[in-house]
């Protein structure tokens, strides 16, 4: 690879790449989510079969396309035909169809509710209401192919920023765009940059936060895996704007593929001279290092993350001094989330005004959510701000599976809350979600049906946060532990009505007296469920009942005699020997011995085991 010494060199490389770029190709999602569904075997099969048939169709192994619940997903370009749940054995048929210019019916997407079948990706309801901006190139760019990225306008924003705009104009454009941080807090990115740029220190840093601690979200991982060049381009532009010469990408330790791809992408950029000294002959020097996290949720918090990069225990500190003034090793430091940075090249290319035209008054642009839970279409979705939760859950997500009733949608992960049906028409917007008692957060969105116990969900998050609290300050460390004890009591059927008030009081103290965002937002899952699902708490306390059948202490497993035909399977499978009965006779569960593992219900083919 040759080093690019100027903007003209970059454009020449782009021309070359464009002249080689194929119109017909197969895009196969190969991010971690797709691999979990067996995409690697499909990729191998494709390669093999293509060689066998002497078909010269390139296969792009890209990041996850988004429709992760139906992975492995492939799209045949230029038509945009989408095949899902592809198995290696399907590959010959797929290639046969492509070769003949036909469509392979059996792998097309069929809407689970309307039963309508779709040929083209763009027509599928899951994609129709999305607005793919930062995820827009996911399917046409191989993560480490600089040619692919250049063919799709890659690094034109960097050239424009460095040669046509200059630091001040970039910052002004980002301010105009109204871009707010996608890491959770929603701080105006332009202001942060402006502050850092105004510092006179000769040494400044920029950090990309890829710690992604929300245990139900993976959009940052997908971006780092699938479009590392886009994130890095945003980061280089940011560094140029604030005058930083060293950057760090902090990647969560559970993300080996993301770490690998970002690292490899950095190497490519160094070889091309898009990182290192005198980038594109502009005189600007900048380089990036990858730092791996150690697996602590609190390290996603800015001051803890900085401590962690410095090799210390990741404890937050109080924020009377901002990182933009004194961050890494005491130097001005800009810290931005992965998705925030991925928006930057688009803003530079298309302008702040354009970006600001998308979304609501206070929340601009799009947001990527990791949509999961009891809906038909799970995966990553990118939607314009201002879309309603209902549209996301029903139009994009396809609604609740198996005809069950909707109960709640959880956003914001451990810092957020659960919203009921009555709040579904709220627009997705930083401030609206906060007012409703939840949070935009970094992008987890879990839809829950009637079989979910809201007390248990609250307990789940509090337990998570108790384990992840760094322990530096008392309200968070002790307060959360106490909240967990109370929630344990309630789910065990030993709670009292006073406990509910105690939870609210504790929540108030913890959110007001904690040092960092972890503690400050920790009571949200409890307070929001108390606000919208209080009757479920009351049932647990007063009636010793868990209507969802989740809280083990409040339910028991029983065999319904009418349905039991004595197949004897549960007898054989029960690990505790708690089931008695002769083959062909009615079976009974010994409640004394039963550990409520649910295996009998799993194995019974006659729906004879009930949770009551």
């Amino acid at each position, binding site marked *: 690879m040759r080093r690019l010494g100027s903007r003209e060199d970059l454009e020449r490389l782009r021309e070359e790449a464009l002249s080689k770029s194929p119109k017909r190709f197969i895009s196969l999602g190969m991010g971690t989510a797709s691999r979990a569904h067996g995409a690697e075997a499909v990729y191998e099969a494709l390669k093999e079969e293509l060689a066998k048939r002497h078909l010269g169709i390139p296969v792009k192994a890209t990041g996850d396309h988004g429709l*992760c619940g139906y992975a492995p997903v492939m799209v045949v370009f230029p038509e945009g035909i989408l095949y899902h749940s592809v198995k290696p054995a399907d590959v010959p048929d797929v290639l046969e169809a492509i070769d003949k210019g036909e469509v392979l019916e059996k792998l097309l997407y069929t809407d689970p509710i309307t039963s309508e079948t779709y040929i083209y990706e763009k027509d599928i309801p899951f994609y129709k209401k999305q607005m793919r901006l930062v995820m827009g190139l996911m399917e046409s760019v191989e993560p480490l192919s600089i040619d692919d990225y250049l063919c799709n306008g890659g690094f034109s924003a960097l050239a424009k920023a460095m040669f046509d705009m200059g630091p001040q104009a970039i910052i002004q454009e980002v301010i105009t765009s109204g871009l707010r941080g996608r890491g959770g807090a929603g701080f105006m990115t332009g202001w942060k940059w402006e502050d850092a740029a105004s510092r006179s220190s000769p040494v400044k840093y920029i950090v990309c936060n890829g710690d992604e601690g929300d245990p139900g979200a993976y959009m940052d991982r997908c971006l780092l895996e699938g479009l590392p060049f886009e994130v890095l381009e945003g980061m280089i532009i940011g560094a140029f704007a604030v005058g930083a010469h060293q950057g760090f990408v902090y990647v969560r330790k559970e993300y080996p593929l993301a770490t690998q791809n970002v690292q490899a992408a950095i190497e490519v950029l160094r070889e091309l001279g898009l990182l290192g000294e005198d980038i594109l002959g502009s005189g600007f020097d900048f380089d990036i290092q990858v730092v791996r996290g150690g697996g602590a949720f609190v390290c996603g918090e800015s001051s803890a993350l900085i401590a962690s990069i410095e090799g210390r225990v990741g404890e937050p500190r109080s924020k009377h001094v901002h990182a933009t003034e004194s961050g890494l090793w005491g130097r001005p430091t800009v810290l931005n989330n992965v998705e925030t940075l991925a928006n930057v090249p688009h803003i530079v290319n298309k302008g702040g005004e354009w970006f600001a035209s998308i979304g609501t008054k206070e929340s601009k642009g799009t947001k990527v959510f990791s949509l999961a839970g009891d809906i038909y279409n799970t995966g990553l979705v990118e939607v314009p701000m201002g879309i309603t939760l209902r549209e996301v859950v029903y139009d994009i997500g396809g609604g609740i599976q198996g005809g069950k009733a909707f109960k709640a949608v*959880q956003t914001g992960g451990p810092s957020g809350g659960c919203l009921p049906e009555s709040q579904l028409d709220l627009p997705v917007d930083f401030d609206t979600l906060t007012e409703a008692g939840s949070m935009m957060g970094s992008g987890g969105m879990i839809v829950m049906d009637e079989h979910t116990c809201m007390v248990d969900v609250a307990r789940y998050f509090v337990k998570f946060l108790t384990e992840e609290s760094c322990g530096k300050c008392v309200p968070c460390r002790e307060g959360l532990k106490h909240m967990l004890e109370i929630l344990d009591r309630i789910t065990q059927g030993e709670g009292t009505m006073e406990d509910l008030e105690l939870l609210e009081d504790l929540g108030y103290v913890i959110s007001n007296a904690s040092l960092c965002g972890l503690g400050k937002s920790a009571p949200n899952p409890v307070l929001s469920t108390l606000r919208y699902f209080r009757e479920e708490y009351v049932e647990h306390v007063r009636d010793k009942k868990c209507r969802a059948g989740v809280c083990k202490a409040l339910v028991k497993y029983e065999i319904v005699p009418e349905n039991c035909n004595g197949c004897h399977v549960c007898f054989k499978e029960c690990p505790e020997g708690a089931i008695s009965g002769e083959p062909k006779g009615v079976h009974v569960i010994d409640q004394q011995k039963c550990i409520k593992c649910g295996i009998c219900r*799993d194995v019974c083919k006659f729906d004879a085991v009930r949770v009551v």
Partner: protein
Amino acid sequence: MVKLPDTPEYNKVKEFVSQFRGDKGSLIKVLHFSQGVFGYLPPEVIKYIAQELGVTPSYVYGVLSFYNFFRTEPIGKYEIRVCLGTACHVKGGKDILDTLCHRLGVRKGGTTKDGMFTVNTVRCLGACGLAPVMMVGEEVYGRLSPQRAWNIVKGYYQEEAGSEVEGSG
């Protein structure tokens, strides 16, 4: 002075650490590397790292115990990682964990007596559409029920020629 034996593994660690002598800011990087070599952090390695980076062993312990990625005990032949991310929790991930722990006779984080399995948890593998999910080694298994999860684990025992299935029902 802590000296490490002269084996290929220890030498890898020695070579890596030598780049960072006296630089305690590199501690996490060095710990990642060393755990990559041994699968865990043996006590002599911890002492060695402390000495080379110029900090006390207790400082090293303080840092490594803060980050839950680091281990000071060896792990089994296969690591089972049950996903307890939000989506998997809601779909019964805890039941999978409880069943496996119960049947294998270990607690979360523990290793079976025969050294076959270590049972751990993980948060969101990004396969939420398949929830509840677990990984055994590098394999991902989805749409689990407690029964299916246990059958999968039993399958690993059956693959190990001649080994007895412990606690099977």
